[in-house]
């Protein structure tokens, strides 16, 4: 049969545009993940150490981190991570390829991770293993010596002599250190455990505050409040609340929670400690409360939508059977709305985990002396300051004295933050699917 409509009438261009938009979004996400993975995942792989003999007679040992092609202003050059910051003053060095006479990969070249000053890259001269006072004398490529005690060295290895398995083992060990260790060197090395705990705990606390608050508000708006200009006004306000810049929430949190509520608590209960503030300073409680204000509109909107989507017949059926409005709510409406509520919850959680600006004003720190969760009573310390992966990214990536050396750390932190968000929202999605299955609805 002859087609009587043209492609515009059939809506084909719109389908094409829709598909293209989706492809673009997917591509962006994949690109971003790819960049993060490529930069972050390889960071802990033990790199080959090159010994470069230069034409001026000097010798340089280090990892080739980048190769820059020739430009009108400079010749082709290599970026070498030479380490030994305490001796050279910088971790990196640029060397023009034309200045290199020979390149070799000595198997005895050593990469020593130190507690301070970044890695030492060189050779082992003498090693004395005499118990606690074990000493090691290292020398760099040009023979300058450095003596380290065992306590100063985290790990020492010869990447050029390592097998693939050994490298892989080392890689895993460093990854484990990242997840379970304390940060070193102004956060540019070591682990992220405090930041992981801080992030998860903050999101968890935020959920505890935002979830009941949001659901109850939505239930009141939808089920109890008489529809009128006041309710409509509140609804518009709630929707717009989601559009306020997060830093404004931070300022509010600082002014209201920290300087208002916190300082008030101090005056009432901790007056003996003043002027040292106990609650009147940023802390994980205030940061979580601030974030819950930021995310509560999402929960409200999602819950309202979910309640509104329930067919009126179900409500009437419950009431006609002699259920009170509260019984109808708890036994029928909320269970039926629960998948929708969970969707809002997932969005809120993802937003909270990635938010940094309000935290900077309300309790996040570069380096927290103690965790908000530990073994000493009362185990959860809501007044403590905390570390956060999002802030960590900003701090390490843009505020550290050694930005170039900490680049891998920034990407690893990003990966970790993404993974945590994924795990948390994955759990919530799993929960939601279970609820969906349980209250499989639609056909009324």
């Amino acid at each position, binding site marked *: 049969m002859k087609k009587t409509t043209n492609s515009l009438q059939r809506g084909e261009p719109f389908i094409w545009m829709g598909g293209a938009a989706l492809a673009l979004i997917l591509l962006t996400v994949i690109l971003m993940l790819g960049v993060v993975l490529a930069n972050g995942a390889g960071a802990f792989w033990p790199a080959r150490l090159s010994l470069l003999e230069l034409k001026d007679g000097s010798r340089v040992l280090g990892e080739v981190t980048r190769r820059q092609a020739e430009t009108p202003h400079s010749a082709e050059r290599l970026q070498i991570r030479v380490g030994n910051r305490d001796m050279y003053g910088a971790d990196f060095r640029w060397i023009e390829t034309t200045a290199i006479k020979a390149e070799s990969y000595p198997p005895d070249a050593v990469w020593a991770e130190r507690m301070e000053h970044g890695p030492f890259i060189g050779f082992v001269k003498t090693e004395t293993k005499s118990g606690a006072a074990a000493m090691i004398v290292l020398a760099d490529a040009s023979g300058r010596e450095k003596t380290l005690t065992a306590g100063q060295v985290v790990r020492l290895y010869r990447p050029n002599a390592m097998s693939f398995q050994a490298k892989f083992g080392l890689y895993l060990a460093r990854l484990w250190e990242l997840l379970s260790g304390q940060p070193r060197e102004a956060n540019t090395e070591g682990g992220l455990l405090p930041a992981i705990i801080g992030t998860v705990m903050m999101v968890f606390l935020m959920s505890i505050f935002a979830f009941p608050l949001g659901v109850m508000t939505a239930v009141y708006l939808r089920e109890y409040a008489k529809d009128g200009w006041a309710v409509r006004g509140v609804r518009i306000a709630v929707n717009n609340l989601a559009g306020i810049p997060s830093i404004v929430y931070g300022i509010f949190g600082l002014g209201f929670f920290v300087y208002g509520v916190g300082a008030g608590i101090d005056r009432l209960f901790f007056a003996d400690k003043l002027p040292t503030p106990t609650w009147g300073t940023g802390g994980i409680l205030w940061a979580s409360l601030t974030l819950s204000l930021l995310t509560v509109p999402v929960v409200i909107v999602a819950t309202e939508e979910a309640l509104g989507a329930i067919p009126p017949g179900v409500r009437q059926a419950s009431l006609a059977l*002699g259920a009170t409005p509260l019984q109808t709510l708890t036994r029928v409406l909320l269970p039926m709305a629960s998948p929708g509520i969970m969707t809002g919850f997932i969005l809120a959680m993802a937003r909270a985990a990635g938010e940094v600006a309000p935290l900077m004003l309300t309790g996040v720190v570069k380096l927290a002396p103690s965790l908000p969760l530990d073994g000493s009573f009362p185990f959860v310390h809501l007044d403590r300051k905390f570390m956060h992966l999002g802030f960590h990214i900003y701090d390490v990536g843009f505020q550290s004295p050694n930005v170039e050396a900490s680049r891998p750390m920034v990407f690893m932190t990003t990966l970790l933050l993404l993974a945590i968000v994924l795990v948390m929202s994955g759990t919530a999605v799993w929960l939601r699917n279970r609820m969906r299955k349980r209250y499989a609805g639609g056909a009324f």
Partner: protein
Amino acid sequence: MTKRETAICTVDDPVIRVDGLRLFYGESEALKGITMGIPRKQVTALIGPSGCGKSTLLRCFNRMNDLVDGVRITGGIRIDADEITDPALDVIELRRRVGMVFQKSNPFPKSIYENVVYGLRIAGVSKRTALDEAVEKSLRGAGLWEEAKDRLHESALGLSGGQMQRLCIARAIAVNPEVILMDEPCSALDPRSTARVEELIGELRKDYSIVIVTHNMQQASRVSDYTAFLYVGELVEYAPTTELFTAPLVKQTEDYITGRFG
């Protein structure tokens, strides 16, 4: 012709007595002074053209009109000796005495079992044996037991349309009401399911007083003992079904049931 304006029969020992009932939606008057008695353990059909107020009247009997904003009622409705228009009346208790089946079947997204025991659970019954017993009794009463006994714990949403409506009836009778209100219970069902539900209504009248709203005059004549014809908020004729359909006393009724208007 010497036909009358209205003709309303009296009923001995009615279960519901409606007395001069007027209902207003805001300014407009939806029921204009209705007086009638609903017979005990019989089926009463309310018929009339759309918008005549038959569903509104039905919803007065379990106060479902309370859910609509701006509804005002004058006059009286008594169930046995209780005045149910009294604002102080316990609506919850009333709705346990007066069950309702809706036009569109509306099972909860729960298992068949949980649907049936819903009314009992919210009334505080939690003994397993009592619940089990009620489920079997109600499902048998609604003629659904044979079809549903092997899938009691599966979702009620997996049932067919006719089965769902019978489940709603089972759910209503599980709390053992005195009166069952049915608001066009078959209008969304196919002829076969309709026949099944009509048969069921015939069985239920042994134990319950039933008020059914229907658009379908054949249905009214098939299932009911008494029929009330309403027209724009007024009760025009109320009589035993056979009399109303064979020898209507009012011209308007005759015109309606013979299909001359409406």
